[in-house]
C-alpha cells in the first residue's frame, strides 16, 4: 500500500521504524535500540540518520536496507545515512528495549554490580569474557541456575 505523501510526517515514519528489527538482536527495533538519531520528512523525501552501536558494526548495511525497505511504503525517496555526530551509548536503549532483551535471555547494560541472570534473576553471576558473539555483548555465567548468558556491553 502506498500512503499519500501529504499524510507522511515524522510521527508516522518513527512508528514505521518501530517495526524494523535489529538483525543481531531481533527482539529489538531500531527505535528501542536507540539508534535513530534524526528523522526529516520534506518535499524531497524522507531522511533518516542512524547511529552505529559500534563503529565496525557489520549489521549496519542490513539495517539501512531494512529501513529503506520498510519506509518504501510511503512512496517517497528515502535516504538513510549513518553518523557519529553524537556517540551511540547503551543508555539510549529504551525501557521497552531493556525488557525485550531480558525476555530474550540477554541481560541489559548497566553497572557490573547490577547484572542479574536473565533466566533466574540471581545476582550470583560471574563475568566469563568481556567479548562475546557480537561486538556489543559480553559473556557471563550464573552460579545459581548454572547457565551461561550474555550481557549487552555498557558503552
Amino acid at each position: 500500500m502506498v500512503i499519500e505523501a501529504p499524510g507522511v510526517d515524522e510521527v508516522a515514519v518513527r512508528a514505521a521504524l518501530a517495526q524494523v528489527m535489529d538483525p543481531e538482536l531481533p527482539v529489538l527495533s531500531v527505535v528501542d535500540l536507540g539508534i535513530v538519531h534524526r528523522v526529516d520528512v520534506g518535499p524531497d523525501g524522507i531522511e533518516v540518520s542512524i547511529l552505529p552501536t559500534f563503529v565496525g558494526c557489520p549489521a549496519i548495511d542490513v539495517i539501512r536496507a531494512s529501513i529503506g525497505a520498510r519506509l518504501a511504503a510511503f512512496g517517497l525517496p528515502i535516504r538513510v545515512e549513518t553518523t557519529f555526530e553524537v556517540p551511540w551509548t547503551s543508555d539510549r536503549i529504551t525501557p521497552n528495549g531493556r525488557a525485550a532483551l531480558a525476555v530474550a535471555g540477554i541481560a541489559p547494560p548497566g553497572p557490573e554490580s547490577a547484572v542479574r541472570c536473565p533466566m533466574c534473576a540471581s545476582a550470583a553471576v560471574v563475568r566469563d569474557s568481556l567479548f562475546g558473539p557480537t561486538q556489543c555483548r559480553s559473556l557471563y555465567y550464573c552460579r545459581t541456575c548454572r547457565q551461561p548468558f550474555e550481557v549487552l556491553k555498557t558503552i
Partner: protein
Amino acid sequence: MSVASLPTVALGHLLGSMADDEFVIGFSDSEWTGIAPLLEEDIAMSSLAQDEIGHAAALYGLLGELTGADPDALAYDRDPHEYRHARLLDHGRGDWAMTIARRYLYETSDATRLEALIGGSWPPLAQLCAKLVREERYHLMHIDAWFARLAGTGGEPRDRLLAALDELAPDAATVFTPLPGEPALIEAGILAAPMVDLEARWRAAIAPDLDALGLAMPPSPERPSRGRQDHGPAFAWLWDEFTMVRRSDPGATW
C-alpha cells in the same frame, strides 16, 4: 573549520597512519581465530580484530572523503612499502606473550593519541574518536588484565613476556612517530600536541603500571623519523595474506 582551510595533506597522513595501525593490528589479531589458548580468548581476539578493522574502515572512509580515494583500494591495493603503520606492529604474530605485549603497547599508545584528537576542530574526526574511545575502553580492560597476569606469574609466562618486550623495545614508541606536516595539524586545532609530547604523556601514563610489575620502560626509538617505514618480512607475509583474496580476482564485487 571550513574544508577549504583544512591542512589536507597533513590530515591525510594522520588519518592514513591511524587507519593503517588499526588495520594491521586487526589482521594480526585475527590470526588467533581458532587457535587462541582459551576459548574465551579465541572469541576475544576475533571480536577485537573485528573492532579494529571496523575502526580502520571508518578512518579509510574519512580519508576517502578527504582525497576522493576508494577506501577499499586504500586498504587493499597498495604495495607493502606504502603502508604507514607503526613498526611496533611489524613483528609477526609470535606467541601469546608477544601478542599481549604488542597489544599492551599499542592500546595504551592509541588511548593517548585518541585523547589528543577528541576535542579537535575537525568534527568528522573528533566525533569518530569520541566514539572509538568508548570501544577502546573494553580493549584496555582486556589487555591490562592479561598484561598483569603474565607479568605477575613467575617462570615461563613472565619470561616469555620479558622476551617479547625485549624484541618490541626498539619499536615500542613508534605510534608517536612525528607526522609529515604535523605543525599544520596543531595550528589548525585538529591534533592537541606534537607526537613527541604525546609520547611523553604515554610514558607518564604507563610508568606506574610498569613500575608496579617490575618492568623497565621502553627506550626511545633510535631513528624516530623512520618509525612508520621500513616494514620487514613479517609485514610482507601479512600483506600477502590480507590482500590474497582481493588480488585473486581484481575488481570483483560481492
